[in-house]
């Protein structure tokens, strides 16, 4: 420990360490010793239970009280030291508490939900590992470790999405999730490297605290000036873009959102914990951590992208038939709200929405899990060939699954943002702040609150559609297959307790005793330093009234459509419908253009490698062989040839001479005479 701390703080730190490490210990125990045992679920649950208790204690000790930061040297590289440490401030303890508190019911739920699965222990290994990474992520005090756990969170998400690794879709989805997350990771890594280069430290506190290194650096004349380093300002933008990529990948913001709907291939309990409540919130958490880095223009961009994501995801959710996909898009949409809130400066409101959303979305997913589970039961009991997640098959489950219905209803209403729910508090806060923010920015920026309102209305519609299709009316399955037997119910306490707990947390009293005014939420006081102070005016009443009124109207409209089938329905073949149903063709675009492009590029690279580089090498080789051939030819025919030629000449002369030695006396005579005559002739011709 670098500095002397009071005993209680040291204890807090140990608590924090224990809270983080316990799930890891559970993971190790499960991995090493409890390979097949059902005990593993309870080990993990126990670990997370203790973690959440510790987190609660830490929360009470740190929240709005103090900030604790301890660090220790991890290793030295060159001249710079890397530290490992724990930073407990309002943000991290909030997240610490949130993650462990959400994880606990999910664990309990999972022990029941996964009980028949062959990979039960493996599931809890992964889950514990995820909890460890996520908890560590929120308490780490430096960017490198933050990044490390950031990626480990992605990795555990990868493992969990591909939990049923023999399903082709699941492994496609987890690959996609990891790679898209990798894009974000690279952005984040680049940003971290840029910051390291600029400030020579990874320490979050030193960088981002009030009056810290970030705050004291300036941008002037196209240069980004910190204490002793000047960098072109473009690198500040790139750092922000990098962080945004990280956020977009983790929190499923446009354009990197496409992995999240596919990630629903994992077990539903996983979707509830990771892809609704915690991991996807890590992006927003990261934004919260590095908030001071962004300048107003960048924040505006952030707001616009968040708003766009919210709107886009909501439109897609309108037409999806897969229960989990609807929820996934609604998650994207709500995350868009959070990012937008960060962008407009509603730091605290954004985090508030994060928290409320975590609860009600987790609740929704767990309920959906029960619904799907039960439909699957029906499917298995009756050997039907249906998709258990398709809401077209459902209906009327209200009576069969009363608790689930109530839980879903509470979650749904919170998602819409109707009063008395926690969602109302946080969402209205965002909408109001958006409106206030846009007021001073010109007409274009008014589009942001406008779209935010519109998205809210859309939310009301798709939530209503989902609720109506699942719980109201009659069970479509029965309608289609009248003879099926149905034995379903809410399930045991391990299903019910988490639902009840989360449903309670999704109601207003948990956050504020005033069900209508979000300003009175205790959570907001924790971040007063960042949150833009807003004056209380008429809009604070007008906007909620307006939005809720519109929502109610929409719900009524949906009710008319789906229950009474009396109202005009938008055509299901129009451009808008197809756009929505096909998820704006973004995935298809990625597959057809980006992935193809990369694959083509890699094929080209390989072609280049084989044909050009290897071709060149082989050409050299051929030239070599050819030269060698020439050399050997030369050797054989020229060098040896000369030798052979002289031999041949000698031989020829010999042979020629030999022919005179044919034993014929006359021939000898003839030759002799010939020689004589030649001498004579020469004598006459030449020497005369």
């Amino acid at each position, binding site marked *: 420990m670098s500095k002397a701390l009071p005993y209680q703080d040291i204890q807090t730190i140990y608590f924090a360490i224990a809270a983080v490490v316990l799930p890891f210990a559970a993971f190790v125990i499960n991995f090493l010793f409890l390979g097949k045992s059902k005990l593993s679920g309870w080990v993990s649950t126990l670990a997370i239970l203790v973690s959440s208790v510790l987190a609660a204690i830490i929360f009470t000790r740190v929240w709005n009280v103090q900030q604790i930061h301890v660090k220790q040297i991890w290793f030295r*590289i060159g001249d710079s030291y890397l530290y490992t440490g724990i930073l407990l401030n309002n943000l991290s303890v909030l997240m610490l508490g949130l993650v462990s508190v959400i994880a606990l019911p999910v664990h309990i739920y999972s022990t029941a939900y996964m009980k028949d699965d062959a990979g039960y222990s493996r599931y809890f290994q992964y889950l514990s590992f995820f909890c460890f990474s996520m908890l560590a992520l929120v308490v780490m005090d430096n960017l490198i470790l933050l990044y490390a756990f950031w990626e480990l969170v992605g990795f555990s998400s990868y493992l969990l999405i591909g939990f049923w690794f023999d399903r082709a879709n699941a492994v496609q989805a987890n690959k996609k999730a990891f790679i898209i997350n990798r894009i974000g990771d690279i952005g984040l890594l680049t940003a971290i490297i840029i910051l390291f*280069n600029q400030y020579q430290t990874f320490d979050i506190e030193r960088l981002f605290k009030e009056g810290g290194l970030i705050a004291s650096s300036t941008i002037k004349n196209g240069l980004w000036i910190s204490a002793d380093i000047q960098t072109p300002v473009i690198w500040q933008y790139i750092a922000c873009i990098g962080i945004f990529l990280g956020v977009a990948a983790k929190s499923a913001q446009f354009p990197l959102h496409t992995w999240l709907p596919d990630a629903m291939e994992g077990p539903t309990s996983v979707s509830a914990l990771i892809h609704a409540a915690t991991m996807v919130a890590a992006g927003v958490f990261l934004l919260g951590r590095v908030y001071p880095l962004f300048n107003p223009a960048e924040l505006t961009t952030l707001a616009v992208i968040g708003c766009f994501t919210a709107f886009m995801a909501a439109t897609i959710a309108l037409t999806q038939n897969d229960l989990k996909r609807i929820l996934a898009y609604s998650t994207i949409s709500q995350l868009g709200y959070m990012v937008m809130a960060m962008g407009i400066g509603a730091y605290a409101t954004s985090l508030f929405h994060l928290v409320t959303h975590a609860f009600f979305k987790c609740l929704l997913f767990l309920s959906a899990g029960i619904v799907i589970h039960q439909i699957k039961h029906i499917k298995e009991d009756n050997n039907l060939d249906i998709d258990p997640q398709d809401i077209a098959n459902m209906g009327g489950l209200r009576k069969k699954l009363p608790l689930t219905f109530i839980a879903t209803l509470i979650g749904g209403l919170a998602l819409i943002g109707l009063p008395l729910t926690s969602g109302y508090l946080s969402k209205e806060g965002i909408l109001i702040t958006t409106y206030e923010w846009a007021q001073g920015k010109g007409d274009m920026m008014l589009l942001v609150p406008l779209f935010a309102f519109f998205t809210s209305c859309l939310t009301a519609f798709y939530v209503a559609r989902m609720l109506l299709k699942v719980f109201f009316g009659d069970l479509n399955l029965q309608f289609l297959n009248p003879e099926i037997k149905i034995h379903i119910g809410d399930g045991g306490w391990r299903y019910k307790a988490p639902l009840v707990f989360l449903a309670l947390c999704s109601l207003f009293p948990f956050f504020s005793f005033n069900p209508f005014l979000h300003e009175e939420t205790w959570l907001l006081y924790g971040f007063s330093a960042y949150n833009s102070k807003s004056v209380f005016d008429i809009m604070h009443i007008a906007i909620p009234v307006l939005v809720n009124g519109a929502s109610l109207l929409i719900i009524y409209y949906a009710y008319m459509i789906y229950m009474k089938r009396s109202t005009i329905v938008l055509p299901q073949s129009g451009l808008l419908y197809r756009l929505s149903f096909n998820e704006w063709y973004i995935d298809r675009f990625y597959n057809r253009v980006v992935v193809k492009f990369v694959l083509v590029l890699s094929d080209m690279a390989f072609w280049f490698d084989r044909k050009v580089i290897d071709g060149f090498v082989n050409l050299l080789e051929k030239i070599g062989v050819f030269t060698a051939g020439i050399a050997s030819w030369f050797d054989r025919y020229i060098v040896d040839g000369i030798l052979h030629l002289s031999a041949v000449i000698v031989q020829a002369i010999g042979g020629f001479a030999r022919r005179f030695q044919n034993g014929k006396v006359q021939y000898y005579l003839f030759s002799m005479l010939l020689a004589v005559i030649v001498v004579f002739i020469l004598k006459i011709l030449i020497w005369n």
Partner: protein
Amino acid sequence: MNILTLLIFTPVLFGLIILLLPSSIRASFKYIALLATLLQLGFSIWMYLNFKTGAAYAGINHEEQFQFVQKLPWISLDLGGAGKMQIEYFVGIDGISVTLLVMTSLVLVIAAIASWEITSNLKGFFALFLLLDMAVVGVFCALDFFLFYTFYELMLLPLYFLIGMWGGARREYAAIKFFLYTLFGSVFMLLVMVGLYLSVKDPVTGNHTFNMVQMMNPKNYIDGSVFSILSHQTILGMPARTVGFVVLFIAFAIKVPVVPLHTWLPDAHVEAPTPVSIILAGILLKIGGYGIIRICSGIFPDVAYSGAYWLGLLGVISILYGAFNALAQRDLKRMIAYSSVSHMGFVLLGIASQTAEGISGAVLQMVSHGFLSTMLFFLVGVIYNRVHDRDIYNFRGLGTLMPKYTVYVMVAFFASLGLPGFSAFVAEAFSLAGAFKSHNVNGLLPYWMAVCGSVGILLSAAYFLWTLQRMFFGTVSLKGGDIWKIALTDINWRETLALLPLALIALVLGVMPSLVLGKINDSVLALVQFTQTVFHR
């Protein structure tokens, strides 16, 4: 007895024993080889533990700071008027060598374990294996250029035969390609070596010397000699020192390998038997990186400084190009071979940055890649041994058939793609950080290089995950049908014995990089200090 000498020559001793033993007990050869490598590992671990750190033991260009030094006259010829020819048996290590030595010894143990699969001509195989063992260890220890070169060349011969005799279908092509490539590099290296020899005088004895440490001191260069910095000699119109650097760099770049000199690697890997692949990827490539650090930037720091941009560029190209190529492969071994190209690109990028972070990252990456590529090739060997096929498309759903194997594959893959917690992450992150920082520190590399380099991390995720998804996940479906299904048994204790230490080391190095960085820091700092000051006017 000097521990380094012991370390270098232990394997040869065992190799001789194997040669002398009758072939009738050939089954015991692998145990003898394993014993030799284990003994070597013991020595290197002892050295690692006794290795002193601190600025006073930095090494690099201070002969007295090297540790475990042994210096004996080896070839000493009186050439009359031309002075004395002075070649020494001079071995010693500093921070950069020590970690690589430990890595090498461990990889050799694994390679020895992997040699269980060899069934033909065991005597020849293990004798060559141990000869190779000696040569690679010798390269990391040698401080005399002539000795270095001797070991360097000595590696080629056993490798050529190991690939050419125990390899796959196209082994002869691969062996020849490998041999020619590396020979091409080293022949020119010989010329530069001689040039350096003629340029450098030992200040004590006044003779020409092959001592590499002496070569790093500009004062030892004879005025007007070819490589003297002051004389500005030229070769073919280019500055002589640049030519010398480039030639040496090419020699080592072939080993690393740097695009476009890499094409021997996939062929050699694909055709080589598993233990040779392991040695190739685990150790040989590191010799390239080590050579660039110790010799290229040690003896020609001025050129390394001025040419850093191009080095970095080659590094980035290697990263991206190797990654793209890996993405296009369908042969598992070839894919891993290309991924090696990509990962070694980080080494080059780190070295080019000439920052402490970059070079430390590069060395760490070499160590990490040594373990990980060993693991990867061992894993490929496992599956190849069972069904004699490596085509990614021919497998599906191995995760169900071979769960333990899949766990190791996942560990190896995720460690390779730079998952935090494994060694490659720290190495790659700091290589990139160093490359990025370099612009501010010494202005060598532009910012974008680091950014482009990081894209390589993304691509490595793409090809590893694609392979995982294609081969290991999904429902079981094999090209060879039920025969394969029976053949594909999960890993046995021997394979576990090889894989588990590697996986643990990758993990431990990821969590505690100080195990490596602690030893190399002083040397790296000294090197950075040295390259930036010594040869600059």
